[in-house]
């Protein structure tokens, strides 16, 4: 869905105001754009806390297979997340990864039973299907719980405890790794613009840090 920028800005300011009134947390409003000026969706934005590391957790995530496509195309999860790979198609699929962060394969299957994989190391995992070469998905595994992914409009919002963070951003079409930024989050809202050169393609994938 498309929203106009003034409306988004107004909504952001309203949220920041609410956050300031209710809790001791900062709000980061991310607006991602390609260098061409177009809104950039599926941009992974990760905040590594520089002050304290939160305790580990074991969340779950889902990467579905619909119409020979992985949904979502790009996922970002915390290390220790178990991702289930249901198969919503009526055909069989196989899932594999030769990525260093996680090598696995799920033999040909249908339905959603027992297709769970634990992602226990940080890194970029590229998923493929052995019998459908065009099926491709990316899972970014990070050691922090503070991360988000922009919607198709290029915007995302994240509540962060105040403190210092190192910020990384990534997209499959990045031509080169985006520089790491340091930001400080206070009690208030923070507008964070992200501009990326997205003229590349996954075939010459920019390395994940």
């Amino acid at each position, binding site marked *: 869905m498309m929203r106009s920028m003034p409306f988004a800005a107004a909504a952001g300011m309203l949220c920041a105001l609410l956050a300031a009134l209710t809790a001791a947390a900062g709000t980061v409003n991310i607006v991602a754009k390609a260098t061409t000026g177009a809104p950039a969706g599926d941009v992974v934005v990760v905040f590594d806390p520089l002050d304290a590391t939160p305790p580990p957790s074991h969340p779950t995530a889902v990467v579905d297979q619909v119409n020979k496509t992985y949904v979502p195309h790009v996922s970002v999860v915390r290390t220790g997340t178990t991702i289930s790979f249901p198969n919503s198609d009526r055909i069989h699929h196989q899932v*594999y990864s*030769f990525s260093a962060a996680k090598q696995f394969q799920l033999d040909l299957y249908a339905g959603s039973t027992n297709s769970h994989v634990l992602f226990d190391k940080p890194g970029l995992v*590229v998923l*493929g299907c*052995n019998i459908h*070469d065009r099926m491709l998905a990316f899972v970014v595994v990070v050691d922090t719980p503070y991360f988000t992914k922009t919607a198709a409009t290029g915007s995302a919002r994240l509540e962060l405890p105040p403190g210092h963070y190192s910020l990384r951003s990534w997209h499959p079409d990045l031509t080169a790794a985006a520089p790491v930024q340091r930001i400080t989050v206070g009690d208030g809202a923070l507008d964070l613009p992200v501009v990326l050169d997205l003229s590349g393609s996954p*075939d010459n*994938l920019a390395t994940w840090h």
Partner: protein
Amino acid sequence: MRLRTRIAVTFLALVSATLAAALGAVSIANRDNAEREVQRQLDVGARVFIRAMESNRRQLSQAAQAAAADYAVRQAVSQGDTDTLASVLENSRDRIGAAMAILTSLDGRVVADSGSDSLIGTDFQFPQLLRPGKATDSDAGVVVEHGHIYQLVAAAVRSPLPAAWIVMGFELDGRSTQELAQLTGLGITLSIESPAGWSDVVTTAGTAGRDAADLATRRLDLTGKAGNRVTATLSRSLAEARAPFERLTRVLFLIAFASLVVAAFAIFALARNITRPLRALAGAVDRIRSGTYDVAIPVQRHDELGLLAEGLQVMQSAVQSRDSAIRRLAYEDTLTGIMNRAAFTAALDASLTKVSRPIGVAVLNLHRFRRVNEHLGFGVGDAVLTRIAARLQADQDAGVTIARLAGDEFAAYTTLEDGAQLQPWGAALLARLSDPVVVDAQPIDISMTLGLCIAPADAATADELLRCAELSLERARRDKQPLLAYSPALQPTARDQLSLLGELQRAIDADELRLFFQPKIELATGRVAGAEVLLRWQHPVRGLLGPGQFLPFAEQTGFIRKITRWTIGQAAAQCAAWYRSGRPLQLAVNVSADDLADLQFDRRVARELLRQHLPANLLTLEITESGFIEDPEQALQLLTALAAIGVSLSIDDFGTGYSSLSHLARMPVHELKIDRSFVLGLERDPEYAAIVRAAIDMGHSLGMKVVAEGIETEAAEGALRALGCDIVQGYRYAKPMPLADLEAWLEGRARVPVLALPAATSPGDFADTAVFEAS
């Protein structure tokens, strides 16, 4: 050129030209066909070659992609299991019979090789083929390595993102090129470009060693994305391509030559078939032309030539019969059946060359034959001529050749012992012919005059002899002699007359004729009674000619009519002049026998009188007695008409003709002129005096004046005076003189008064008649 040759040459030329044109066209078409065929083969060959290369590429691509998509390969790539990879590559290579299969990392380092391990770890030579991010996963190209040409295909190994490249390739070596050569049916040469220039790497058999000019080529650029330029040259031998067409052309040439030979024989035979009978016919025509009429026409055919031959046969007999008819007409007198003039001339000429003895020639003329025709009819006339011819025919048996020359003129010649026999022979001939001829039991008196001459004394040719004899005859008739032999004295006059022929016409036009006047004297009183007009010819070369020198000739040629008209015109004008001056004088003009045959003569005289307003009785016309002997009836009519006009008429030379006195009595004549021969003999011969007396008495009794001419002496004048002659004329009184002299002579002389009748005033009476202008 003969017809046969012409026919043959024409048709052979036509056939040759046609064949040459056809062969030329076929040769050109063959050459074009061969070249087109070669171009077509090159087109097809190029397509086949490209298709084969594409097929190879696809095969390589399929094999490489199959290998790249293999899960085990993906696994081996991710695990760096190079041994497994090498075995997989070897398997894939051998499956399609490729020359090589290698696997490289994404940055182009050789990781595994189907063959030796020597390349492992080195950079792949043609990184241009490895293009990450391209839509298709495989790429192809033709490259050169160490002098070998390879067709390479690269395919990406995905896991699932590109992780490595599999490169597979065929070598374009002698064997594969040979296969392509067989497939395309062309010679193939693969060449590469190096800094040193182009060099051939592979050349198939059938191309090597060929003359470049003989080869048609098509060059294909095979160069891919990497390395040196590579071309494939497809070639086809033009000589080979042309060979079948040239064989065809040779066969056609043979056929053409054979047709030409056959056509030549046929044409010659046909031409001979036409010309041989034509020559035979031409020969026959030639013989017919030379007068042979029994020619057998040697052509027996059923075509147009046969018709021509039949026509010739018919024509031959027609020509023959016409020829004999013409001969008959040409050399035979149709009435009498004896020779005509032409045949006689030819026979005489022939005799002149054959006979050495003298030949006597006679020409004879019947007197008054015209009267026989008129009074007794042409049938009797023809009978008379036939009888005469028959009498001559009797002589023919005695060695005399005879002919009828013209109407009443015959000719004969015979061989004589000597010249002295001429006269007796002529006399004998005359004697035999002079018997009366009996036609229908009616005896007809005939008399004739004979002219003689003798060859070779008088002339050498038939024509001249006949002319001599005719001259003799002419003179004999004039001299009233029955027979006269030719003497050269006759000739010059004749020559003069002949030469005058052309000049006479000119004489009138050039006004060369002159009027001379000889006065007539009334014997009793000595007064001038008139004058006779006499002609002189003031000839530019010969001088003044007397009438005897040209008038006889004018009479013979009929020219006399024109002269008479002119004379009457002149005399009338002069007469009218005197009349107008009040001193009228009668003028007498001589009229010839020929003038009297002019039926318009009276009208012409009348018109002239009218023109000059001249009283008719001032003009006297003197008519010779002989002038009306020939046709007395017509002469009588004319004289009556002239008398009616009022013209005075006088009979000239009275006593010399044979005119019948009864005719004389009926004629409206006013005057008789006694012939001078009587006057000349008057003094010495009493018989002549008797005749003159009789003539004078007769004239007087018929109411005529009597004139005597030729008086030279006083004695003659006395005799005439005694005989009662009215008027005299002669040298004793005056010679003929020109007008001026006459005027002088007349001066002071008394004239017999003339009672001039009123002149005719209305020309309308004679308006339909031409006057004395030339008609």
